[in-house]
């Protein structure tokens, strides 16, 4: 493997995170912002799974392979990714519920307009 391949998955994770952060900062719609937050979070999935990968490794499930016969990828980061996805989904649900209430009470989901309403 070339030197680029050794860091490429990590760089992809950084890129996905930055794209999400840019979207969050420039968002004009709260639903869009919640989507951008989900993009930021998916960067952590890529990072975790990239950290746990092992060359030629298979899934760490031994119902159909003999233990020790093949290298397996790191199960700890896979479990962390699962936790990450569940927490991400619940946070998204909660934020969308807040957005529903904001849209009802203020009649807009543009963060800039909301700030003007406050001031």
């Amino acid at each position, binding site marked *: 493997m070339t030197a680029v391949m050794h860091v490429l998955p990590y760089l992809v994770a950084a890129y996905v995170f930055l794209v999400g952060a840019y979207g969050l900062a420039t968002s004009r719609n709260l639903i869009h912002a919640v989507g951008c937050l989900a993009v930021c979070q998916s960067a952590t999935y890529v990072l975790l799974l990239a950290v746990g*990968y092992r060359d030629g490794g298979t899934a760490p499930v031994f119902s159909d392979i003999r233990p020790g016969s093949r290298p397996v990828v790191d199960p700890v980061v896979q479990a962390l990714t699962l*936790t990450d996805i569940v927490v991400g989904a619940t946070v998204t649900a909660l934020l969308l519920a807040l957005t529903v209430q904001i849209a009802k009470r203020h009649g807009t989901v543009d963060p800039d307009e909301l700030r003007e309403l406050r001031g």
Partner: protein
Amino acid sequence: MNPRTRLWLVVLGGGGLAALLVAACLRLPVFGGPWHPYGDRAVRAALARHTANTVASVNFDQRAFDTMGEMTILFGAVLGCVVLLRQARDEHRDPPAPCEVAAPVRRYALIVLPVALVTGLYVIAHGQLSPGGGFQGGVVAATALHLMYLGADYAALERIRPIEAYEIGDALSASAYLVLGFAGVLAGSAFLANTLLPYGTFNMLSSGGTVPLLNAAIGMEVACAVVVLLARFLDQAVEIEEGSGE
């Protein structure tokens, strides 16, 4: 702050963050390398406790306490959504009129519903053996019920989904997880320690000690939580209207 200044600030901060992230990436262990000390130990511990799916062993045995925290987050988020999306004083419920569904859609949804439901339950039940588990299977089972909405209408979905029952189920399964944890304390070991039950035969449905039980509790919790969450959002979209009604 005007949008132009803000964009400049974003570009400046993002550029700095990008530089730091790239510098950090270059110092990380090589992608695909053989050095995974925690992974190797987790695999060894899972095999010692006869759990074929190492990820399930990490979630429900080695890090069972963390999973309890995760379950609490899920429970709290559902509670928050229920409170946020309740019917306000100036709103009323307007049951949607039944409407015609195209015959092929109806047929397909009603054929797939039981298959998807059983698939979800299968994924929960085999969490300790094959990829999957309570979290994944719970979501599959919960969304399977909503095929009723596609195949028939909202009233039909509400009939197969009495929401109070799912709220109670959510609370019961969350407490079941805690009770299983305390059972370990009463049995003379530690909270959520996997020492309560025999580890069983490797690769059988009953293997892994308390892993299948905790997995089932989480499966039920996630299924109930997703049903309650989706119900609240669907109520907002379909039933609850502005104005006091009459």
